[in-house]
């Protein structure tokens, strides 16, 4: 289980000897022992608010434009990205506009937010300000994190890494642990690439990066043409979320390309747009860069197409993977990154193992020297205790970390405490009690409250460590807590059984503890 240095073939041969009906879980090793990358990412949930507002603008514009006679002209004002500011020219009709915009609200689709609307609308003079409501934000955040979690998982799985841990942590964080990777950077490259694919109408082409793009437009650089910029409409016709498939392929000229296919909604939007805009250019944008801006030659029904560019085969394969895995709904900010090399972990295991053996031997010698035969009983219990700890660790699927090994070694030292308490008590009782049998009984009885109080308090600290600790520290809390439970169990039941069995068989007149 923490054996190293054997080849896989040997291990597999060994594993073959293990009967199938027996539980076959091994102790999981923590990243600090087997090497790998640990990352903690925070999902930038606010980005989704901005995207939502962006998407909401056309709807608001159309609704207000329909009532142009009352509210006048509608223009969008720049403001905080998480809010939508709309100015109407007839300032005195703000109340009416407010009503219209409020009418666009839909109920929040979540259990906790039941009864609330998805947007809050307020008027500031001639401006109507739309923001996401609190309930909708909560619901959106949750959705965003789940989606991000799923996408991170899919991307890491695509690369084929074994047993990654991908968990939500707290409100808006994702914990990613990938064993066996060379560096956290590699993991970041896999998941950090947003692969945000959009298809946007092209307004014009320019060589000036600072040219004013005009309202609702944006200016983006070209991927392979240096110094070329495109002015695009900000609202995409179709986006990557509508993709159902992407595969590496080659174009008519034999250059690497990526084939893609949209879902029905995406296909319809794409088909309609291409039908209406034959002859105008149209940009394929990946991660804020224009991959290409072909002119629409004909109506493209069916919702499939091809992305060409100056790709290598590798790049087109990678791009297809990223497109297939889908875009992250929001950016990730990495708060914590740890890379542990496999050699360091192996060294730690070796050192830990040696220390555990030497420590245990020392304790055994000390116990036998102090308590003779009873010390031997304690040693048997200690061995039993170690087996129990590893057994429970593997059944629970708990992770063994470096501090966890320290916890086990510490348990070796502390585990004999319950035995010591009992033995010392038996020694005392031998002075007063009638006969050794009575002394043994009394020793166990009277030591119980001390054992219990002492260990419950230690267990409390182990529990708190488990609750607030993370990673390696949690591994320590697990082995320490387990060690306390198993050591009390073995000291009270196992050694007692051994002593009683021995006593029944030998019936000694006097005992020496």
């Amino acid at each position, binding site marked *: 289980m923490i054996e190293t240095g054997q080849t896989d073939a040997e291990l597999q041969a060994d594993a073959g000897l293990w009967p199938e009906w027996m539980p076959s879980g091994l102790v999981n090793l923590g990243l600090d022992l087997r090497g790998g990358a640990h990352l903690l990412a925070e999902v930038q949930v606010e980005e989704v608010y901005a995207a939502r507002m962006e998407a909401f603008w056309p709807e608001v514009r159309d609704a207000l434009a329909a009532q142009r006679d009352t509210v006048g002209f509608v223009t969008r004002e720049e403001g905080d990205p998480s809010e939508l500011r709309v100015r109407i020219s007839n300032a005195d009709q703000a109340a009416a506009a407010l009503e219209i915009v409020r009418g666009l609200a839909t109920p929040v689709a979540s259990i906790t937010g039941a009864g609330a609307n998805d947007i809050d609308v307020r008027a500031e003079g001639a401006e109507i300000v739309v923001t996401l409501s609190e309930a909708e934000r909560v619901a959106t955040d949750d959705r965003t994190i789940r989606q991000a979690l799923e996408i991170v998982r899919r991307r890491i799985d695509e690369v084929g890494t074994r047993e990654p841990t991908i968990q939500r942590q707290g409100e808006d964080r994702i914990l990613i642990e990938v064993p066996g990777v060379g560096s956290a950077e590699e993991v970041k490259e896999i998941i950090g690439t947003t692969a945000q694919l959009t298809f946007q109408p092209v307004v014009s082409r320019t060589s000036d990066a600072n040219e004013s793009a005009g309202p609702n437009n944006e200016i983006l650089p070209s991927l392979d043409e240096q110094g070329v910029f495109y002015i695009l409409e900000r609202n995409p016709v179709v986006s990557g979320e509508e993709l159902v498939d992407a595969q590496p392929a080659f174009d008519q000229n034999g250059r690497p390309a990526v084939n893609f296919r949209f879902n029905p909604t995406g296909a319809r939007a794409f088909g309609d747009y291409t039908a209406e805009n034959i002859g105008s250019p149209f940009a394929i944008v990946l991660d804020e860069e224009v991959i290409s801006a072909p002119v629409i030659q004909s109506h493209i029904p069916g919702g499939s197409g091809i992305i060409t560019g100056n790709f290598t085969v590798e790049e087109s394969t990678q791009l297809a993977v990223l497109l297939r895995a889908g875009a992250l709904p929001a950016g990730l900010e990495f708060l914590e990154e740890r890379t542990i090399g496999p050699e360091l972990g192996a060294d730690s295991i070796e050192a830990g193992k040696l220390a555990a053996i030497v420590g245990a031997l020392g304790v055994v010698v000390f116990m036998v020297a102090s308590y003779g035969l009873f010390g031997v009983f304690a040693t048997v219990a200690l061995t039993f205790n170690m087996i129990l700890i590893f057994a429970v660790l593997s059944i629970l699927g708990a992770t063994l970390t470096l501090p966890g090994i320290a916890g086990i070694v510490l348990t070796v030292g502390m585990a004999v405490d319950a035995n010591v308490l009992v033995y010392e008590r038996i020694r005392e009782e031998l002075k007063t009690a009638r006969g050794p049998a009575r002394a043994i009984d009394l020793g166990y009885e009277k030591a119980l409250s001390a054992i219990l109080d002492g260990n419950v308090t230690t267990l409390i600290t182990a529990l708190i460590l488990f609750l*607030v600790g993370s990673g390696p520290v949690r591994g320590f809390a697990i082995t320490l807590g387990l060690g306390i439970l198993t050591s009390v169990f073995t000291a009270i039941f196992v050694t007692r059984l051994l002593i009683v069995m021995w006593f029944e068989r030998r019936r000694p007149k006097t005992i020496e503890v």
Partner: protein
Amino acid sequence: MRLRIVPQDTKIDFFRAAKITFGASVLAMIASIVLFFVMGLNFGIDFQGGTTIRTESESTVDVRAYREAIAPLDLGDVVITEVFDPSFGDDKNVASVRIQAQDGTEAVSAQTIAAVETALQGVDPTITFPSVESVGPKVSGELIQSAILAVLGSLVAILFYIWLRFEWQFAVGALAALVHDVVLTIGIFAAIQIKFDLAIIAALLTIVGYSINDTVVVFDRARENLRKFKTMPLRDLLNLSANETLSRTVMTSGTTLLALLALLVLGGDVIRGFVFAIFWGVIVGTYSSIYVAKNIVLMLGVKRDWDKKDDPKAGTQFANIDA
């Protein structure tokens, strides 16, 4: 033949030198607090943010050359320390490079790490980087908070448990002993400037757990003796209890220290600080359960009239589990 570290019947008067031992404890605590504020703790990146890079090389570590190689990168505070361990051979030279958190970024950027690695490779081509860890200021802030909460939480939980099972005076005594142990451990970390990181917090909690275990055993005996010898003066009674349990206290501390010593020497440098903290804590914890916790109980006094039916507060209702 039995190994007896403590003679069969001891009658040590632990209170005879009470003024000296208690005074020494108070002084040591004050010294620790002063050290903490004057020297400060050598916080690891867990609590400070920043990056630690562990380097390993076949040739000897030249800290100055490393520093000179990294200096042009202008990364602010860079701490380079050589790491020693008896298990390292001549061809294994390890150092740890700590870079402070960079302004405006959460984790240190990949480019920064790559730049440092390239710079170090320039000094020593055989250098490798077995581990690289970065923690952003946001997380480190939270880690400090949860660490403080963990230590306080466990103290409160233990205080509550002891209060349930014993008289409140014992709870106060136990708490004083725990605070004593935690403060002295922080003190030694400030004094010798060992890296103080998340693992040390785990060590502190372990110390708390160990020390309370030790204290409770003495208290348990005192509780028993309080019922047995109803008229014995409290001072004598506490002394008797400590003497009766002395052999056990020494045995358990002995076996624990033995196991820890093996870890300290052979367990590798990665957890040495952690093991050192626990090792130190076991020593201080054993001392405090004999010399601090009891003294506080003696100072506060204990209600003795257990049998008076009209006083429901005498004894405690949760104390009777022993047969």
